């Protein structure tokens, strides 16, 4: 495979405007291969929030997706799955992946950072409430996405444990998100969730309509675009397995939106395919 790698300054590539750094230079690494172009830049470089943004330009034109993981630092399957997505190659479309959105919280393995719960800082119709939230929203707006995925972990099982939301996919009210969410749910239940774990079958969560200050709610409220929150549980499930399940849901949603993964489906977990 012919592969060419070079390092450059993001300003030279026009990346600093997109990333809105705090005056610091964001190092950019670009890899070009038969699978398209992959660019790595740094959001809020030089600050405690500094984190990588990977942009994957597939060889064929197609829709644009933003994939976010790590909004909460104690939800490892979410940021592991987002990192998986950032490592894939795609046949068409463009992906902007922010695998570890909330680096300070991830380093401390906590839900919150010093500014509280990052995923409660995105009110519809108003500016995002913290420096990091504003940088993330600017990233989303500049990407002008056709779809946004936000990958999380949950502590329990939806409608089984009090106050638990996983395993579930929460779509925006914007078509075709509800339909595609159902397809992704059925795909995951049919392929990776073993028959002997019936309580772990994914379900569709409530519609996201902009009524709460969450990132994907704001995607619906301000941009009127399809978006999804994907939740996989930590309960009786190790983080790598939950991440594989989350990755499959993300892969299915991206494919439905016209951004198919080049090298196929995620690895089936043990017990999968036995349904």
């Amino acid at each position: 495979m012919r592969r060419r790698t070079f390092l450059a300054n993001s300003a030279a590539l026009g990346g600093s405007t997109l990333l809105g750094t705090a005056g610091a230079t964001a190092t950019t690494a670009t890899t070009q291969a038969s699978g398209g172009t992959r660019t790595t830049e740094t959001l809020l470089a030089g600050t405690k929030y500094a984190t990588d943004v990977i942009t994957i330009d597939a060889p064929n034109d197609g829709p644009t997706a933003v994939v976010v993981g790590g909004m909460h630092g104690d939800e490892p399957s979410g940021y592991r799955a987002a990192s998986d997505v950032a490592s894939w190659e795609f046949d068409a479309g463009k992906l902007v992946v922010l695998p570890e959105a909330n680096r300070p919280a991830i380093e401390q393995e906590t839900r919150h950072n010093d500014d509280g719960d990052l995923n409660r800082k995105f009110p519809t119709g108003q500016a995002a409430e913290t420096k990091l939230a504003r940088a993330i929203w600017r990233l989303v707006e500049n990407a002008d996405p056709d779809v946004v995925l936000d990958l999380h972990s949950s502590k329990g099982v939806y409608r089984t444990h009090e106050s638990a939301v996983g395993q579930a996919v929460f779509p925006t009210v914007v078509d075709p998100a509800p339909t595609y969410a159902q397809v992704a749910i059925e795909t995951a239940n049919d392929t990776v969730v073993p028959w002997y774990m019936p309580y772990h079958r994914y379900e569709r969560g409530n519609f996201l309509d902009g009524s709460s200050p969450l990132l994907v709610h704001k995607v619906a409220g301000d941009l009127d675009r399809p978006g999804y929150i994907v939740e996989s549980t930590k309960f009786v499930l190790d983080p790598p397995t939950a991440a594989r399940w989350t990755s499959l849901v993300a892969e299915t949603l991206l494919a439905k939106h016209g951004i198919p993964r080049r090298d196929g489906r995620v690895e089936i977990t043990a017990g999968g395919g036995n349904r």
Partner: protein
Amino acid sequence: MSDATADRVDFRRLRTVFAGRVVVAVFAFLTIPLVVGSLDGRLLTPLAYPGYLVMMIGSSVGSYLFPNYALWLFWAPFLLGCYAVAVVAGIGYRTVR
């Protein structure tokens, strides 16, 4: 029969009821496949199904009664519950036999 012999017989009976082979086998059957599978999902097998049902039903009731408790705490009652089921299974086995 002397008192010492009677004590030894009672001890053996107690050991059989609470730690007999059937008790150990049922307890292991309920717990090991689920514990191993929860540590590494690649090791999940259909053998985890009975323990999984005990865990899900028990933790569902537990989280309803104690909504502020972290769910990982329910591993302790799960193990105790599986042991109780194993003891009952052992008694049942001896009764039928």
